[in-house]
């Protein structure tokens, strides 16, 4: 019994920092709809700044003052990020801001390395709270008790702020309908900034307050990210009590997991999240996301159409150039380009469901890595010839997507995204944990192609054929009736249903198809590298694809390919330099601000403006966000904007 109580107390103490960070994320998402990847970075900054302040400020007062000041300092950093990076891109398509926050992560990583050095720092202990007390004969650290006591006060304070003050009323109103709040004369920009300040402050506090239980290191930003997303989703996006309950639930379950099922540490929280979402699709305290509730931001997507003759010629020339690369390029340029093609195919497969289907998957790496593992396992255990293993990889990955898609299909929006992430993590931990079969994180090695392909140039052509082939196939499907049905399901599920389209089935099939194509790229990958490791199934790999889609332009067919090629080549070039993360992060932020429609979308506009490309349909070009086009609208009001309501 004593142990049981002590374990619950440990869980509650662990929940403190988790709750603080997660509640900030939840608030930010609730009001601004920004999925803030940089939240882990705020947490890390809180820890480092808190640590530095504690070196200067002595005693018990100094300790707690440092915690508070660290929180406020991070809040100010949050405001700077919001004003400089996010404010210019609120008008961009939904989730686009996620790319900006990714740039922020990179910048903060290198700045933290510059400021605090590479070494881990151990947090100072809290003065006056160093020892233990015995509760039912079990030792419980005093600081744990302090954390347990503090958290409800913070929760209460936040609750009071949100439920009882005017600011809180505005925040809640904005969470429900921010256009309406704006229409009623509230300055949205400052409301958003204020919420960002609060959210970042909470993350900073979380980072500083956990110092006596650990310390600060440069990996902590990514290490907490998955956990806080899980907490926010289980609790229900935007719900503070939900975040608290979920933080406690996860932390306490984890303590018992450690004791009674020590191997469970990798997956436990994802299992909990998957179970909760299956039963309550919007988390414990969340409410249903109504499609379109938050308004369509950015300009509506143009209807896609088959490429004209000019474009076809251009593409053919491009492919010809790629095909001639072995003639004039070095052996390494072929390897690099093959890598880029493989990555572009992977990104394009995600773009297919994300752009055309409107289904945001955070776990697409599961099918890329899944395909790679299917091929690698076949080769390793059954000595399957490379050609057959290669063809079976997309089948296996498609099958995985088929199953996971079926399980996720009843959810929408961010919850759908998080459930795909949970399943991808489950698959990852299965591969990671099941060392006897999958090799664990030592992976599977010596997976090389057959003799006839096993040198640089033949494999380059092989990649070219299947990579470009896969991309053209995706494009072809987009123009097929199936592609039309998919877009109809995205744009207006109800009308699509009325015309006889089974929207869920169409989306499910699209998900499976995208998974299979991702599996194809995974197979190309594994035979080009000769080995595969669980890193190919990681969240980071999924996010790589997600980011290039937005960078390239989510509302253009070529977005994934443009974004993928640009980022891969940029990375290849930049990683040669010392502070490449800082540079890359700044470039990403720059592109995001200058080209909120992505590289491809912006280039297209530019081309239209200077007349290289013809505006595909001058009527459509006028159907833009009325605010953006207000000027043009008054100037040319002869052409009536027929669709005021986006």
């Amino acid at each position, binding site marked *: 019994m004593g142990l049981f109580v*002590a*374990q619950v107390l*440990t*869980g509650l*103490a*662990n929940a403190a920092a988790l709750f603080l960070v997660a509640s900030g994320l939840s608030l930010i998402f609730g009001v601004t709809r920004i999925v803030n990847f940089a939240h882990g970075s705020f947490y890390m900054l809180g820890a480092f700044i808190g640590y530095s302040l504690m070196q200067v400020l002595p005693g018990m007062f100094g300790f707690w003052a440092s915690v508070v000041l660290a929180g406020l300092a991070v809040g100010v950093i949050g405001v700077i990020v919001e004003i400089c990076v996010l404010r210019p891109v609120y008008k961009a398509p939904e989730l686009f801001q996620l790319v900006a926050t990714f740039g922020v992560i990179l910048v903060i990583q290198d700045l933290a*390395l510059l400021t605090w050095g*590479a*070494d881990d*720092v*151990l947090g100072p202990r809290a003065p006056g709270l160093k020892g233990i007390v015995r509760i039912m004969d*079990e*030792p419980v*650290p005093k600081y*744990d008790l302090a954390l347990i006591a503090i958290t409800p006060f913070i929760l209460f304070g936040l609750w009071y702020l949100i439920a009882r003050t005017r600011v809180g009323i505005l925040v809640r109103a904005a969470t429900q309908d921010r256009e309406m709040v704006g229409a009623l004369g509230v300055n949205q920009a400052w409301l958003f900034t204020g919420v960002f300040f609060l959210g970042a402050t909470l993350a900073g506090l979380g980072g500083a307050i956990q110092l006596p239980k*650990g*310390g600060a*290191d*440069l*990996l*902590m930003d990514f290490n907490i990210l998955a956990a806080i997303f899980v907490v926010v989703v289980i609790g229900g996006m935007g719900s503070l009590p939900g975040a608290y309950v979920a933080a406690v639930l996860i*932390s306490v379950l*984890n303590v018992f997991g*450690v004791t009674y099922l*020590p*191997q469970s*540490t990798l997956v436990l929280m994802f299992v909990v999240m998957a179970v909760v979402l299956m039963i309550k699709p919007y988390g414990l305290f969340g409410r249903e996301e109504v499609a379109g509730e938050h308004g369509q931001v950015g300009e509506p997507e143009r209807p896609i159409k088959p*490429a004209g003759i000019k474009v076809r010629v251009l*593409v053919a020339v*491009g492919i010809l150039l790629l095909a001639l690369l072995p003639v004039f*390029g*070095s*052996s*390494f*340029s072929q*390897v*690099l380009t093959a890598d880029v093609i493989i990555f572009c195919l992977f990104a394009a497969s995600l773009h297919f469901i994300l752009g055309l289907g409107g289904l945001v998957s955070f776990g697409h790496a599961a099918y890329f890595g899944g395909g790679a593992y299917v091929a690698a396992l076949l080769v390793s255990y059954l000595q399957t010839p490379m050609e057959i293993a290669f063809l079976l990889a997309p089948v296996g990955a498609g099958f995985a997507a088929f199953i996971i898609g079926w399980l996720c299909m009843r959810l929408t929006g961010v919850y759908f995204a998080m459930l795909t992430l949970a399943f991808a993590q489950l698959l990852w931990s299965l591969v*990671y*944990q099941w060392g006897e079969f999958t090799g*664990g*994180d*030592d*992976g599977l*090695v*010596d997976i*090389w192609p057959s003799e006839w392909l*096993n040198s640089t140039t033949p494999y380059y052509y092989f990649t070219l054929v299947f990579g470009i082939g896969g991309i053209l196939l995706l494009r072809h499907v987009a123009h097929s009736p199936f592609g039309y049905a998919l877009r109809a399901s995205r744009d207006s599920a109800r009308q699509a249903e009325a015309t006889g389209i089974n929207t869920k089935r169409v989306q499910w099939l699209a998900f499976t198809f995208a998974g299979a194509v991702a599996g194809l790229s995974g197979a190309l990958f594994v035979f080009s*590298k*000769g*080995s595969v490791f669980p*890193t190919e199934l990681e969240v980071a790999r999924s996010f790589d694809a997600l980011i290039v889609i937005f960078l390239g332009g989510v509302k253009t067919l*070529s977005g994934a*390919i443009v974004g993928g*090629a640009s980022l891969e*080549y940029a990375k*290849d070039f930049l990683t*040669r330099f010392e502070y*490449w*993360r800082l540079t890359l992060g700044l470039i990403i932020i720059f592109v995001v601000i200058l080209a909120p429609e992505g590289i491809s979308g912006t280039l*297209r506009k530019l081309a239209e403006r200077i007349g290289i490309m013809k505006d595909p349909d001058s009527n459509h070009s006028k159907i833009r966000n009325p605010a953006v086009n207000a000027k043009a609208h008054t100037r040319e009001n002869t052409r009536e904007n027929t669709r005021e309501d986006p």
Partner: protein
Amino acid sequence: MKIQQLITSALVAAAIGLTGMSANAADTIKIGEINHYKRMAAFAGPYKNGIELGLQEINDAGGVLGKPLEFIYRDDQGKPGEAVKIAEELMTREEAVMLTGTILSHVGLAISSYAAEKKHLYLASEPLADSLVWEKGNEYTFRLRSSTYMQAAMLAEEAAKTDAKTYATIAPNYAYGKDAVAAFKKALTALKPEVEFVTEQWPALFKIDAGAEVQAIERAKPDAIYNVTFGGDLAKFVREGTTRGLFEGRHAYGLLTGEPEYLEPLADEAPVGWVVTGYPWYDLTDESNKAFVDAYQAKYEEGPKIGSLVGYMTAQSIAAGITKAGSTDTDAMIAAFKGLEVDTPVGKITFRGQDHQSTMGAFVGTVALKDGAGVLVDWKYKDGADYLPSDEEVKKLRPAAE
């Protein structure tokens, strides 16, 4: 579909433009060094310093085969696929003669597989995984640093001397942690069959829930604890364990815990009394060790880490190998590395012909506090050669290379 093709081809053209810039290759002997410089900056930094020091001495003494030795450092972001791409670039475009580097074992394994396929020499400097030279070992891969198995066996030898009967283990939940626990168990039960392992804890790497882990170990009431956690996990585990009195009256053994990379951040909270492997550079008095430490301190104004030592020895080993081979031909270098003897700060090491593992050993000692910092006392350098399995066993362990 149009613009991206233009961009792609433009970028490809740019990439090709770069190839033209490749330096005039004949002047130096180039070594391709791939590491996680950003992802693991705390470890890769000192390692690189060690290499630079070694290079300086080698080149001041006239280089190798009459040419200066040069390392090309590249960051792989800690991704195996990226590392393979860079390896290809280093070998084909930069005209490196061989590859070295990596700390993370899986990245090392990826490069090792690539090296075997493309017939390049790879000296794995820091990755610890046993499989790198054993079950997945190949003709083209050599490894410098003493492996997980060797270091665990050294600790097991110390553990067997005590009367502890029940053991708890705590290790990060991935291949290195699992290897380290398996090796310790194997070595300890061989020496002392009556020991019993009462609990095994597997926290997720860098996501330890230290309070819960301590409670779970306390619940099993072991006589001794074997720790494999490191970095931030180690700091949290030690702090919670000390606060809650877990280590009182218990023996504790820590793999790598005494290495400056991990011990220094703990400062005055270093786990006193633990028996650990590490690197007591501040205490070394013999000529060769001292010379390295002094030179390192003179150049960088800080003490060397274990990574610095490994980096320095990497440069030394490569110089010795190429000199012995008399050329930079891969086959000649492989033949030279087999049985290659190198005079290093820790003494003479040999790259074994049978499994390509060097006999670099490790320092084993007890953690104590001195001037508010953890140090190793009563330490002893254990020669790696004494902790490797017999030749017959190695043959069985190395199926792929035969």
